């Protein structure tokens, strides 16, 4: 498979803080690739390096074989970037913003209209409205249209779904999948673990390190411990009881339930007996498949 973006021992620090601590990755052409991890993990720094806006301290990054330092001008022509903060012109209208971005890249709205038709058609009724007056979901669609208007080969989206409601989020992912069908490589950053399943492959990133890179399915398969879900009406008490259990290796609230892992020499029945003897409310206990979030926490634990 052709490589769209590759990073080799990439490092970047700011003063005393090492934002990216020497990471390696390869992103294939045409895939939707997610960098998934909490704030402060290094996602934005990495994206600024990939988009040639920031130089790494060391390491090598290439885009379609082009070097980010020597070939930055050619790279910028083939890349679309949607930064985390809304960075369009609030005082220009929807149409004016889009027209501006098209002309900066030496193209026109008409030339690449088919690429943005699905997204922009929802904005067209408001094309004379100033960007500053749009709702969050519409700003996001306009920003995506502007990032796409020069028909980039690679689209870099920094937390496009942060602060967006659940429905707009789903629609946004549907749009991304349609774009991927047109052979655009899409790289997305998100703090939301549940969005991993929407990507072809993901890198879990924390504190400037990549914990793992794989398909979401593989990451879940690689979770070798048994994990149990315990439901009860009193989660707080349940957590307190589990903390007293000597063979519990982890116990965390997970929505209305608790997810727990136990020492390897113990069985489900041991956990059941412990809860029966120590927990006063009704509960149900089931072995479950881990989620990406369980895997993420497990990887951090084993790295420490």
């Amino acid at each position, binding site marked *: 498979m052709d490589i769209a973006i590759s990073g080799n021992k990439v490092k970047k620090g700011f003063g005393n803080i090492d934002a990216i601590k020497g990471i390696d990755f390869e992103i294939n052409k045409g895939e939707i690739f997610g960098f998934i991890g909490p704030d402060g993990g290094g996602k934005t720094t990495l994206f600024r390096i990939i988009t040639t806006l920031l130089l790494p301290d060391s390491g090598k990054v290439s885009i379609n074989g082009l070097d980010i330092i020597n070939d930055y001008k050619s790279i910028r022509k083939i890349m679309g970037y949607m930064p985390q903060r809304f960075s369009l012109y609030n005082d220009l209208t929807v149409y004016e913003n889009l027209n501006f971005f098209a002309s900066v890249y030496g193209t026109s709205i008409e030339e690449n209209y088919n690429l943005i038709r699905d997204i922009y058609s929802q904005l067209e009724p408001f094309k004379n409205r100033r960007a500053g007056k749009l709702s969050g979901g519409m700003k996001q669609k306009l920003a995506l249209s502007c990032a796409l208007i020069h028909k980039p080969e690679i689209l870099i989206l920094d937390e496009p779904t942060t602060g967006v409601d659940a429905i707009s989020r789903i629609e946004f992912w549907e749009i991304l999948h349609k774009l991927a069908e047109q052979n655009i490589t899409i790289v997305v950053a998100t703090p939301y673990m549940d969005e991993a399943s929407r990507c072809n492959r993901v890198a879990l990133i924390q504190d400037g390190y990549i914990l793992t890179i794989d398909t979401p399915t593989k990451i879940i398969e690689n979770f070798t411990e048994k994990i149990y879900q315990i439901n009860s009406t009193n*989660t707080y008490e349940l957590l307190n009881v589990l903390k007293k259990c000597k063979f519990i290796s982890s116990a965390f609230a997970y*929505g209305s339930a608790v997810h727990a892992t136990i020492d390897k020499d113990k069985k489900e029945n041991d956990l059941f007996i412990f809860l029966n003897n120590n927990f006063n409310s009704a509960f149900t206990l089931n072995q479950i498949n881990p989620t990406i979030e369980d895997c993420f926490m497990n990887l951090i634990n084993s790295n420490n």
Partner: protein
Amino acid sequence: MTETNENIIEVRNLIKKFGNFTANDNLTFAVKKSEIFGFLGANGAGKTTAIKILCGLAKPTSGLVKVAGYDVYRETELIKKNIGYMSQKFSLYEDLTIIENIRFYAGIYGMIHNEIKEKTEYFIEKFRLNKIRNTLIKDIPLGWKQKLAFLVAIFHNPKIVFLDEPTSGVDPFTRRQFWELIYQTANDGITIFVTTHYMDEAEYCNRICILADGRIKALDSPAELKNKHNVTTIEEVFVKLARNN
């Protein structure tokens, strides 16, 4: 938990109009003492309007609304004294230390010096902030800011605390520690009112209320809602109820 059947928030036939637009269209619900209550809705569903009314910052067009036993038409100052509010932006002072932020917020709520001193020690211990008590806010990680923002919101011992998208962006460990603090606080008798866009966060609540187009589309425990709609996540429930209508 005590007096679990006591309603700490009571809303009956709440209507709020802005000109011809009805932001809250006849809302009726109650929140019980010590409950963790999730308030969900897409952008424009009417969440913010309703919360402003509950916090005493706006008046309804009509309907009955009581918060902590006080009336939102006449007793807004008493409501403000009895609630805490934590915004997703953690409105802390970046150039003050942890201790200074606590002292500042406690002072605003009219707490006296000795009480502040005593309680500060209690909470610093409970929230495990001792090592960084004299660090400026701008130098502490996001997860700690979040804990501190929650601390200052409950420091004056409100009856209800409103949390506006409290855990966006923090790592899964910090997020769970934070929810444990929320459980603990609810267990101590403070009612928790949470708004969020993130449906997995909604699953932590005892009951959730889903708003769409200014109306309540569902109000029940996450488990019941999933059962009723025969799905496995709250996100699916939300999409069914809030999409295309």
